[in-house]
C-alpha cells in the first residue's frame, strides 16, 4: 500500500506568485496513494525540511513528491531530508513547478493547472520507485592537468601542495603558455616572465608534479575517481633525459629559416630549438617540418655537436597510459584569425600587428631585443593607432559575439608603455567602450589618458589604407566630435578577440564535457559551481571556461585545485545507483545492449535455467557491472525483449509519467 506525501513549496513568491499553491496541494492530496499534502513558503529551509521529516515519520510515508524548483537545484537536498527521516532517498521525486511552470507562465489559472499535472506526474512516478542504494567506488589519488599555461601551472602547484600526484600535459615543447609571451602585466606593470618563470621552476622541481611537455591527450575512458587516460608524447627527436639544454645544437643548426612560433613568426630560429631561455623542460626539440636530416637525411649537425648524445632522429611518438581521479582542463586561448577583416589590412601590411605580436615586438627576448621597431623597415614608429574590439562583440561570421574582456586593459598598458619609453610617439586608441571593472583597473586607464597623454577616441576604425610611402592611412569615426578623422600612422595594433584553443573541442568530446556555442567549456552552475564541468570529475581552469585576465585566471586555477583536492581527499565515491539491470528470465543474450554501451559495462554469462517442463537449459544472458554503468539507458532501448531496464527511470515509471501527463 502506497503512502505518498506531497509537499508544495511557495519559494517565497517565485512559485506562489503565479501558482495557487493551496489549490495544487489540495488537488494533489486527492490523487490515489497520497495520504498527506501540504504547502510551505520555503520547503528547502530547515523548517520546511522538518515538515517533510515529521510527515514521513508520522504518516509512515513510502514516497514523497516535492513540488518546488528544478531537481537540479534541490533534489539532493530533499533526498538527504528523506534519508534523515528513515525513508530511502530514492523514494523522492521532484515536480519542477518553478523553472518549468511558475517562471514561464503569467496566468495563475494556467500555471496552477500545469503545476497540478506536473505534481501528479511525479506522484505516478514515485508510486513505482524502488529503494536504491548507492554503491562505492575507489578514488585514484592522482590528478591530470591538461594545459601548461598559468592556469594549469597554478592548479598543478596547488594540488601538489596538498600532497597529491599531478601530471601536467602541455602540447608545446615548454610550459608557460600565453603568459610567457607577454611582456608586462596590467595594472602593476610587473614583468610577466619575472613572476611566471619562478612558478614554472616550482613545477619542474616539485616531486609531486610530472610534466609531459610536447604531449597531447589521446583517449579518455572511465569516470570520476577512476579515469584512464592515454597521453601521446610526441617525438622531439631529442632524448629528454640526456639533453642538458646547453643550446649548442640550436647555434650550430644550419637551418635558420624556420619561423619562430614563440615570437609568432615575427622572426626566425633554427630547426632544432628551445622556445625561450627559461623554457621548462629546458630541452631542445627538432621541428620535423624544417629539419634537413628528418626531411631528406642530409645534415646531422646537431647530433655531431651534442656532447650529451641526446639527439635521436629515430624517436617515435610514445603512448603513456595512466589512471587519474580527477581531470583539470586548462587549455587556454588564442587570438582569432583576422582573415575576415580586410579593412584593417592585417594580411597586407606587416606594420599592422595584433596586440600579442606587439607584446613580442616590445619584449627584450623578442625579435628586436625590446626596441619597438616597425616590422617592415625596422624604423621607429612615431604614430601608432590602436583598434579595440577587433572581432569581439561582433555578431558576423568572422567575429565573436562576446567581449574578450582583457583587451581594454592591455591596450591601455601598451599605450602607456609606448608613451613612457618613446615620448615622441603619438598614440591613438579607438574604442567603443572602455571596460575597466577590476581592482585598480580604471585608475590605470585614467593614468594612460591623464599622465601619459594617450589619445582615446570614441569610435571605430573603418579602414586602414597602406600608402606607397609605407605609412598607414587610418580612417575612423570620432563619434563625440561627430567627425570622420584620418590619421597617418606608422603602425596599427589590433586588439584581436580571443577564442578557446582549437584543441578544446575534441578534448571536450573525449571528456564528454559540454561546451557552449563559442567552444568555451560549460560550468556545472554559472554562479555556484564555476570551476566544475557538469561531467563529474572534470574541472575547469582559466580561459577555457570564458575570457579572463591573469589575476582572475590564477584565482580560478586555485579554486579549481581546491575542488580537485576535495575530490582526491575522499577514499571512496558513492556511485549513482540509477543504473541498468537485466532481467535474466527475459534476456535473449542477443548482444544488442552490449554494442550500444559506451562504458563496456555489459558482459555475458552462460546461466542454467529451469524450464517449465522440469528440464534445465543453459542460456547466454547479459550482466551489468553497476560500478561501470553510468545510467544512460541506451541499452534499454536496444533491448527488444524489455529485459534491460534502468533503475530510477524504468520503463514503467516513464510510461506512468506519460500516462499522467496525457490523462
Amino acid at each position: 500500500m502506497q503512502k505518498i506525501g506531497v509537499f508544495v513549496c511557495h519559494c517565497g513568491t517565485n512559485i506562489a506568485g503565479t501558482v495557487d499553491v493551496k489549490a495544487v496541494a489540495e488537488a494533489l492530496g486527492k490523487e490515489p496513494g497520497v495520504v498527506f499534502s501540504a504547502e510551505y513558503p520555503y520547503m528547502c529551509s530547515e523548517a520546511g525540511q522538518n515538515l517533510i521529516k515529521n510527515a514521513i515519520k508520522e504518516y509512515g510515508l513510502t514516497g514523497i513528491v516535492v513540488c518546488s524548483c528544478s531537481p537540479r537545484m534541490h533534489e539532493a537536498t530533499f533526498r538527504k531530508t528523506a534519508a534523515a527521516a528513515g525513508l530511502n532517498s530514492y523514494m523522492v521525486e521532484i515536480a519542477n513547478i518553478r523553472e518549468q511552470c511558475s517562471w514561464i507562465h503569467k496566468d495563475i489559472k494556467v500555471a496552477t493547472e500545469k503545476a497540478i499535472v506536473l505534481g501528479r506526474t511525479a506522484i505516478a512516478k514515485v508510486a513505482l520507485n524502488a529503494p536504491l542504494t548507492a554503491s562505492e567506488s575507489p578514488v585514484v589519488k592522482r590528478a591530470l592537468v591538461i594545459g601548461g599555461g598559468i592556469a594549469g601551472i597554478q592548479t598543478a602547484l596547488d594540488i601538489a601542495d596538498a600532497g597529491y600526484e599531478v601530471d601536467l600535459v602541455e602540447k608545446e615543447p615548454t610550459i608557460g603558455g600565453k603568459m610567457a609571451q607577454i611582456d608586462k602585466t596590467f595594472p602593476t606593470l610587473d614583468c610577466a616572465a619575472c613572476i611566471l618563470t619562478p612558478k614554472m621552476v616550482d613545477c619542474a622541481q616539485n616531486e609531486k608534479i610530472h610534466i609531459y611537455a610536447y604531449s597531447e591527450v589521446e583517449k579518455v575512458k572511465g569516470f570520476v575517481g577512476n579515469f584512464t587516460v592515454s597521453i601521446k608524447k610526441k617525438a622531439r627527436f631529442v632524448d629528454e633525459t640526456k639533453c642538458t639544454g646547453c643550446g649548442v645544437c640550436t647555434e650550430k643548426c644550419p637551418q635558420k629559416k624556420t619561423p619562430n612560433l614563440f615570437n609568432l613568426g615575427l622572426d626566425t630560429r633554427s630547426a632544432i630549438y628551445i622556445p625561450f631561455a627559461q623554457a621548462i623542460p629546458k630541452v631542445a626539440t627538432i621541428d620535423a617540418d624544417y629539419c634537413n636530416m628528418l626531411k631528406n637525411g642530409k645534415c646531422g649537425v646537431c647530433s655531431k655537436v651534442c656532447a650529451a648524445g641526446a639527439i635521436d632522429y629515430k624517436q617515435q611518438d610514445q603512448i603513456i597510459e595512466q589512471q587519474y581521479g580527477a581531470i583539470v582542463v586548462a587549455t587556454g586561448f588564442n587570438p582569432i584569425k583576422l582573415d575576415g577583416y580586410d579593412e584593417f589590412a592585417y594580411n597586407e601590411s606587416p606594420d599592422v600587428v595584433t596586440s600579442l605580436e606587439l607584446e613580442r615586438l616590445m619584449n627584450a627576448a623578442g625579435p628586436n631585443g625590446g626596441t619597438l621597431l616597425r616590422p617592415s623597415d625596422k624604423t621607429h614608429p612615431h604614430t601608432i593607432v590602436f583598434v579595440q574590439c577587433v572581432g569581439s562583440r561582433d555578431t558576423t561570421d568572422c567575429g565573436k559575439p562576446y567581449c574578450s574582456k582583457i583587451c581594454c586593459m592591455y591596450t591601455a598598458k601598451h599605450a602607456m608603455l609606448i608613451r613612457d619609453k618613446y615620448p615622441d610617439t603619438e598614440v591613438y586608441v579607438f574604442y567603443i567602450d572602455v571596460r575597466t571593472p577590476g581592482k585598480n583597473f580604471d585608475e590605470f586607464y585614467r593614468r594612460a589618458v591623464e599622465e601619459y597623454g594617450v589619445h582615446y577616441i570614441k569610435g571605430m576604425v573603418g579602414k586602414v589604407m597602406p600608402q606607397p610611402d609605407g605609412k598607414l592611412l587610418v580612417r575612423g569615426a570620432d563619434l563625440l566630435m561627430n567627425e570622420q578623422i584620418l590619421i597617418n600612422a606608422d603602425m596599427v595594433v589590433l586588439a584581436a578577440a580571443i577564442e578557446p584553443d582549437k584543441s578544446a573541442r575534441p578534448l571536450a568530446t573525449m571528456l564528454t564535457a559540454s561546451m557552449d556555442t563559442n567552444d568555451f567549456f560549460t560550468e556545472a552552475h554559472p554562479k555556484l559551481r564555476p570551476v566544475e564541468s557538469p561531467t563529474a570529475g572534470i574541472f575547469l581552469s582559466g580561459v577555457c571556461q570564458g575570457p579572463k585576465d591573469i589575476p582572475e585566471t590564477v584565482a580560478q586555477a586555485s579554486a579549481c585545485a581546491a575542488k580537485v583536492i576535495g575530490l582526491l581527499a575522499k577514499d571512496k565515491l558513492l556511485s549513482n545507483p540509477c543504473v541498468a539491470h537485466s532481467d535474466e528470465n527475459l534476456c535473449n543474450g542477443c548482444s544488442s545492449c552490449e554494442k550500444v554501451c559506451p562504458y563496456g559495462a555489459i558482459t555475458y554469462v552462460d546461466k542454467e535455467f529451469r524450464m517449465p517442463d522440469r528440464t534445465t537449459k543453459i542460456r547466454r544472458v547479459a550482466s551489468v557491472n553497476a560500478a561501470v554503468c553510468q545510467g544512460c539507458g541506451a541499452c534499454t532501448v536496444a533491448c527488444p525483449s524489455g529485459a534491460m531496464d534502468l533503475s530510477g527511470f524504468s520503463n514503467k515509471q516513464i510510461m506512468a509519467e506519460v500516462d499522467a501527463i496525457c490523462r
Partner: protein
Amino acid sequence: MSMNEFKPKIVAFCCNWCSYAGADLAGTNRLNYPADVKIIRVPCSCRVNPLFILRAFQRGADGVILCGCHPGDCHYTTGNYYARRRMTLLFSMLDYLGIEKERTRVEWVSAAEGAKFATVMNDFVKTVTELGENKRLEDLRCKK
C-alpha cells in the same frame, strides 16, 4: 480567448544534462512558452523508447518532442547518436503510415540554450495546434 480553443497535449522528453538544464534556463530567464508542454526528465535521449512515444499518442498526446544534447556533446558520449538513428527511423515509419510528420520532432538543445528551448517549444506547440487533435493513430485501425 474562446473556451473551445484547442489546447494540444505535448509531451517533451528532455535529457537530464543538456535539454532539461536548457529548459531550466528558459525558466530562469523567464522565457515564456505554452503550458501545454509537459517535460519528462530522462537521463539521456537514448533512454527514450519508441514505445514511450507511441504510448503518449495512445493516451491522447497530440505531439511528442525529444530534446537531447547536440550530437558530439552527449554526456554519455554516444547516446544521442543512437537516439538520432532510432528516431529518424521511427518518424519515417509514422510518416509512412500517414501520421502527420509534424507531430514528432527531435531537437538538440544544450544547457546554455534556454532561448532556443523556448523558441523550439513555441514553434512546436504552434505547429501541433494548427494540426489539431491527433486522431490518425487511433483511427488507423478502424476503417470507417
